[in-house]
């Protein structure tokens, strides 16, 4: 009983740790897609965030400067995306794809030239990593059944960014549905012409949305390389940006369901790590590649079976051109 509880808690803990970058990226996508800008460049922005925060953290030994650098990188790329898609009415999927390819090349190229370690940053010492939050009284409570292990395994020792993410999730719900900015953001994604008629700038609103996207993807990258991991490695986002996008679609562009989708993907991932090499009764050992593709297969199944026709924000993906 005690063991089962511990296993479940460890799985949940792993789920939360894996889900954090997914949630940050998916919510980043939510802001810009709700404003009518499709962004498949989440992956690239995350990777840039991961590289630049690890690079700065390793040079200055200050994780917070690293976090800032990661956010700056995310924002810079988001602005490039905005410049192409909002200012110049470029194709949004192409721009996102270009950013992904650019960063997938740029990060290892710069890492190779700056650190001479085959496209990685050096391993970060603990002081250069974003710390975990040690809650008080973990030892004192550990004697209590159920509550003790829950407190110790699930709540204690989480990274700062995990708590920040939690706050951001709640804040996003409030911003989108309860604030004036959120109302305008949703309006500009559904009917930009109406927003324009109301005397608001479509372009400004979309740039603002992309700014938030940049900040959140930068944080997601930073968490990967300086919070969860200890340094940048080549291709460290490994498709998380795309999974986040799938979670966003699965969540129908709404905060609650999107959060749930991210947790579901993360849970699959936590399970797959534990399933590797385990002998299942009657089946034997499942080849590791099949377990690794679980999240992707799940995504396709979910998109095919449960979401049905995903109704995107109406103006999403369409450049807004004022009639003259």
């Amino acid at each position, binding site marked *: 009983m005690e063991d089962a509880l511990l296993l479940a808690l460890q799985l949940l803990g792993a789920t939360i740790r894996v889900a954090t970058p997914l949630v940050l990226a998916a919510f980043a996508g939510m802001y810009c897609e709700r404003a009518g800008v499709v962004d498949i460049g989440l992956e690239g922005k995350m990777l840039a965030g991961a590289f630049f925060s690890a690079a700065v953290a390793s040079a200055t030994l200050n994780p917070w400067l690293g976090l800032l650098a990661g956010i700056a990188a995310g924002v810079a790329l988001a602005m490039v995306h905005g410049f192409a898609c909002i200012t110049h009415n470029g194709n949004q999927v192409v721009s996102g794809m270009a950013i992904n*390819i*650019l960063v997938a090349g740029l990060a290892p*190229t710069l890492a*190779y*030239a700056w650190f001479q370690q085959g496209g990685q940053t050096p391993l970060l010492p603990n002081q250069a990593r974003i710390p975990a939050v040690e809650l008080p009284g973990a030892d004192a409570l550990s004697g209590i059944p159920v509550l003790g292990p829950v407190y110790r395994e699930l709540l204690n020792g989480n990274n700062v960014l995990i708590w920040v993410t939690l706050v951001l999730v709640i804040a996003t719900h409030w911003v989108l549905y309860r604030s004036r900015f959120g109302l305008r953001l949703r309006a500009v994604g559904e009917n930009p012409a109406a927003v324009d008629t109301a005397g608001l700038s479509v372009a400004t609103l979309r740039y603002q949305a992309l700014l938030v996207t940049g900040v959140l993807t930068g944080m997601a990258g930073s968490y990967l390389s300086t919070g969860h991991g200890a340094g940048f490695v080549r291709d460290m986002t490994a498709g998380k940006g*795309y999974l986040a996008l799938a979670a966003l679609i699965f969540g129908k562009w709404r905060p609650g369901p999107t959060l749930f989708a991210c947790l579901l993907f993360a849970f699959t991932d936590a399970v797959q790590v534990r399933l590797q090499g385990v002998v299942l009764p009657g089946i034997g050992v499942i080849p590791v590649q099949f377990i690794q593709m679980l999240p*992707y297969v799940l995504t*396709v199944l979910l998109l*095919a079976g449960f979401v049905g026709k995903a109704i995107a924000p109406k103006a999403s993906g369409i450049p807004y051109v004022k009639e003259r």
Partner: protein
Amino acid sequence: MLLSGSGKGQPGAVPGWVGYALLPVLNLVAAFVLSGLVILVIGENPVDVLSLLLSEALGYPEAIGYTLYYTTDYIFTGLAVAIAFHCGLFNIGGEGQAYLGGLGAGLVALALTGWPWPVVAVLAVLASALFGAAWAFIPAWLQAKRGSHIVITTIMFNFIAASIMTWLLVDVLIRPGSQSPETREFDPGVWLPSMDRALGWFGIAIPASPLNLSFLWALACCLLFHIFLRRTRWGYELRTVGRNERAAVYAGISPARNIVIAMLISGALAGFVGVNEILGVQHRVILNFTGGVGFVGIAVALMGRNHPVGIILAALLFGVLAQGGGQLSFEYPTINRELVMVIQGLVILFAGAMENLFKPQVEALFRRRGAAATADAATGGRG
């Protein structure tokens, strides 16, 4: 995404070549200037690096062979992306479809040891088309019937293809007793002849390179692509769906059917990469032989304006980048292969997403000049 600069008949009209020649060249220049900045940041001289890139790609016959070999891949994936585009679809899954296409070609070559190569080549082309199309079918069907976002599903299928191929090569198809995850080498009799060998039959001697007969098949595909799209009823239906799905429905054209057809052709075209790589060059099925060709195909289709001739030219450009860029790392210790991706990304960004970057200024320039010319002509006529 359509041809820009259609100002026919207006005073000071902008000539057509501005849209399909001048603007892309300007965008390319911008992309290369930024690439130069990146090279500067790394600490090398951009002019030296870029000129070395060019000479390593086009400077001598062997290099040209290599460049055209890369071009072959990019023509296939460029056409694949373009046909989907014509139907209003974004096929990002060229990577996975090419990977599976290679499996198809490889299985044929493994099974038909001792057969004459032309038979094997034809069957391998069919098999790679079949495998590539099959891999594109599921996302296509899901898009057509269930409305599942094809961008997401094709990306997911890239990951799934990578996992399946790894499993096949590690656990199933691996050469017995071997450590590296690859199949046994095909019997040399079934290899697709390289271009130097084929031209040798006619007494023409060129240096050896990976360039093989699939280059000719790529050019033939360009022609077939054009005929299918512009000269057949199916091509017309496909383009109608791409232009206006509702109009297509009213005209009695089924969007779902055409979505599936477009993606099947797209997958088959991407699958032909497998013929070039596996049957023509590697002569065994190996891990990750695609190396991003599916993504480059998007750029090729965009730059080539989804037209076969444009696609050939754009594929040539990316072939130059791949070959020249790959050679840089031998000369410069601080540069590795990934620099090519930086340049590719910038080219896609400028030529694809920011294709209108210089358009207002350039068109204004031509309008002003055109207007001035007509004004001159008018006054000249009177005086």
